[in-house]
């Protein structure tokens, strides 16, 4: 039986909170509550998942599973009648969230504003769905299905702060020096985001006091929204920002963080001493010199002024993680945490069984004494008290299937295929869902599955070079170089200014042995995209593939000057250092890379190879084991383990086991060269 470390867990989500922005604020004493949480707890980076899309990520946090399992693959889904799209709903989540699991174990939860929590599920405790925060933007009554129990409706109506009631003077704390003019749309946009955030905070803190709870989860998205609107105005002043705008808006980002610190202070009072607080973000956000410029990734001669309009380009792959409370290590750093680890960790802290079908692991390193964990195969079987919506019509539970059915009726000629803007929105959301699923497959080394989706998308969207490029990445990963070469040649012909296409073209040239051609392409791209870390990373990889270790190391260091938290740069630097004989340094760099992006199997392979050099064989075995778990279709980690057991720690049985496994996987993949052998 699992022993509980605490009776209560408070999970606070700050979408897009980022260490590089927080560190100077902490040093300057501007975030005193967070500082206390860090000093008295365990903190560090938490690596995100791909694609870096908040609805998917917050549902991975709540379920311990990736998007292919939990089913939330975007912001919107088709309405079951095919007339348009709607925000993703709790019906679409295909697996249980923490509050369902707690409910079936007779524990009470309070959940406020979680992504895809509408309509509120009837769990033990209280839920205010993410539809509630939208009520801050209008005066109409909130749909009572946003609440469980339904009788919360009346009190929640009173707790919502309406953006229209805010005066400019009330917004002054975000600007500090000077307010924008009253009708500045940016002031109004900030007021809307603030009203939504304050409404969520009001609802959550009210329920924290009014309800009995074992688990409370509250999600704030203000930092992310403010980042997308105002990060371009923070110091240092960007070239496209006028002096006046810089003066007015420069403090908005910082003030937003400080406002969150105030809210955190309130939570620390409410939680009490017997509660473990976990504060985390789903991803980081690029600030300072790393802010993405307009036309990023396009090699056209003239660059538009300003920053990119693509919101995903702002998302840094590492978020923040802090745990604090009884039994949690004090003033410690955590390494290798992933968003997937949050749910199993919370279950273990509360003394509940941890399902093995969750994709993450319990973060045992955060506790002062070892946890006794009771594992169970799965908790997904329906339970009478899990609160999962089961009586809803199938079209509500699976609007994607409803959409396909309507499409079939249109194909048969019985209804008109929808047209106009609504139809475009539905088509777009179906396409994005597929694309996101392909990214999940790619990030877990399921290249064949990703390839099958991308091939379909490429056929439908022939003009979108991004799908073709991702097809090429899959083909290269499974060593189908000739097919990759054919596709990438078409891409560079039809979209010559697309940087990723050029980078992949260079990679293909290199794999075909055309080193000079590859170098020429890379230097052209490097010249045009000097601030794009991806370009430098590709240059570094090219140097590695050519055995130019010093050059590779120099390039990696340049990347780390632009983005100190680039997992790829740390990992590649480690590879270069290993070949330069600096094994301890190599281990450090790989460890750093693994702590920044734990779910990248290649990094663990590289770490294992460096650990062998430092004679830390047991740690190397562990690293290869992690790689084998993260990329279950890859033979190379097993080959490494077989070699260790054959040559270093003689164990014939284990050596044979891993050798057979490697052969079996290699046979399944049907290729001669494992993708991991390149070492980058």
């Amino acid at each position: 039986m699992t022993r509980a470390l605490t009776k209560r867990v408070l999970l606070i989500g700050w979408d897009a909170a980022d260490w590089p922005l927080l560190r100077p604020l902490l040093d300057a004493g501007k975030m005193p509550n967070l500082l206390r949480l860090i000093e008295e707890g365990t903190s560090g980076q938490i690596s995100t998942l791909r694609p870096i899309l908040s609805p998917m990520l917050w549902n991975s946090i709540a379920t311990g599973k990736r998007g292919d399992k939990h089913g939330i693959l975007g912001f919107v889904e088709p309405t079951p009648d095919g007339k348009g799209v709607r925000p993703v709903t709790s019906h679409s989540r295909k697996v249980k969230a923490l509050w369902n699991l707690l409910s079936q174990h007779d524990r009470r939860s309070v959940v406020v504003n979680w992504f895809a929590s509408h309509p509120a599920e009837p769990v033990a405790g209280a839920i205010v769905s993410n539809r509630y925060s939208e009520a801050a933007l209008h005066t109409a009554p909130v749909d009572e299905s946003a609440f469980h129990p339904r009788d919360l409706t009346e009190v929640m109506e009173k707790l919502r702060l309406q953006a229209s009631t805010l005066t400019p003077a009330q917004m002054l704390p975000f600007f500090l020096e000077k307010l924008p003019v009253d009708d500045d749309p940016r002031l109004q946009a900030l007021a809307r985001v603030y009203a939504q955030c304050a409404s969520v905070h009001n609802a959550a803190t009210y329920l924290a006091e009014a309800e009995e709870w074992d688990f409370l989860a509250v999600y704030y998205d203000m930092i992310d929204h403010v980042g997308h609107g105002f990060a371009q105005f923070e110091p240092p002043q960007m070239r496209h920002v006028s002096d006046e705008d810089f003066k007015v808006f420069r403090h908005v980002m910082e003030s937003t963080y400080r406002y969150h610190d105030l809210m955190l202070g309130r939570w620390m009072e409410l939680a009490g001493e017997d509660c473990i607080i976990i504060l985390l973000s789903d991803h980081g956000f690029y600030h300072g010199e790393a802010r993405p410029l307009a036309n990023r990734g396009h090699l056209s001669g003239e660059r538009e002024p300003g920053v990119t309009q693509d919101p995903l380009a702002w998302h840094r792959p590492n978020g923040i993680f802090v745990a604090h409370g009884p039994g949690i290590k004090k003033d410690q750093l955590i390494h290798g945490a992933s968003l997937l680890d949050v749910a199993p960790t919370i279950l273990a802290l509360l003394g509940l069984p941890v399902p093995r079908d969750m994709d993450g692991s319990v973060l045992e390193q955060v506790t002062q004494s070892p946890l006794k964990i009771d594992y169970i195969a799965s908790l997904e079987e329906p339970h009478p008290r899990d609160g999962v919506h089961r009586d809803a019509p199938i079209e509500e539970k699976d609007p994607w299937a409803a959409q396909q059915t309507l499409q079939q009726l249109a194909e048969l000629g019985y209804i008109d295929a929808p047209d106009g803007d609504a139809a475009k929105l539905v088509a777009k959301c179906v396409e994005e869902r597929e694309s996101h699923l392909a990214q999940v497959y790619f990030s877990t080394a399921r290249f064949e599955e990703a390839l099958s989706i991308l091939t379909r998308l490429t056929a439908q969207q022939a003009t979108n070079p991004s799908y073709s490029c991702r097809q090429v990445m899959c083909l290269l990963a499974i060593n189908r170089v000739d097919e990759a070469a054919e596709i990438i040649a078409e891409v560079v012909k039809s979209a010559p200014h697309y940087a990723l296409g050029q980078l992949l073209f260079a990679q293909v040239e290199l794999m075909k042995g055309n080193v000079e051609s590859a170098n020429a392409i890379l230097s052209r791209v490097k010249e045009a995209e000097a601030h794009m870390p991806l370009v430098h990373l590709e240059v570094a990889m090219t140097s590695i593939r050519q055995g130019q270790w010093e050059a590779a190391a120099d390039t990696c260091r340049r990347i780390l000057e632009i983005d100190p938290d680039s997992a790829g740069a740390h990992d590649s630097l480690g590879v270069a250092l290993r070949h330069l004989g600096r094994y301890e340094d190599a281990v450090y760099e790989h460890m750093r890379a693994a702590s920044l992006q734990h779910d990248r199997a290649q990094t663990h392979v590289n770490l294992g190879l460096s650990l062998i050099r430092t004679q830390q064989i047991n740690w190397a075995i562990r690293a290869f084991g992690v790689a084998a778990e993260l990329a279950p279709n890859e033979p190379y980690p097993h080959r490494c383990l077989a070699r260790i057991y054959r040559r270093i720690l003689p164990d014939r049985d284990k050596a044979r086991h891993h050798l057979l496994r490697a052969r079996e996987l290699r046979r399944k993949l049907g290729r001669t060269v494992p993708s991991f052998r390149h070492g980058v």
Partner: protein
Amino acid sequence: MLDFITIVSGLPRSGTSLMMQMLSAGGLPALTDDLRQADESNPRGYFEFEPVKRLRTDRGWLDQARGRAVKIIHVLLRELPTNGTYQYRVILMKRPMEEILASQRAMLKRQGKPSADEAMLAKIYTSQFAQVEEWLGAQPTFLFLPVEYHDVLKEPREVAAKIDAFLGGGLDVGVMVQAVDPTLHHQRNTT
């Protein structure tokens, strides 16, 4: 002239065209524009009226449907106005799901198109149909009569008589029976 609209509804390939033929033969004029020509899937024609497909956005044609029979697919029934302007009598065709899916698959195949996942379609169709039945039962402006496709084939006289009674009488039941041609039953339960 009848003051209600007669609707033949059901899942696609559940025998709605056959029912339209029976009604037409029996003397109830069909609202159809013959735009969709007879083909291998429906050798005697579809008895469809193109504007029905746009029911979600265009209801201007409904006046023409008074006193006539019109074919409306199950998912569009709920788009009909329920404010009392029109009264409806619905003949709701039922057929085993596996036959419906096989027939849809065959029809799409003839057009060179693949069918969607059939297990998924079966779930959604079953749910949609159950909701339609429930909805029809709750609407004061609708009366509906469920009719089994296989009953039409096996006992056409009994079924025709029931339909005649449901629609208030006056149809030529004998001619309705002659309109049933069992050789058109392509997809049997054995597929």
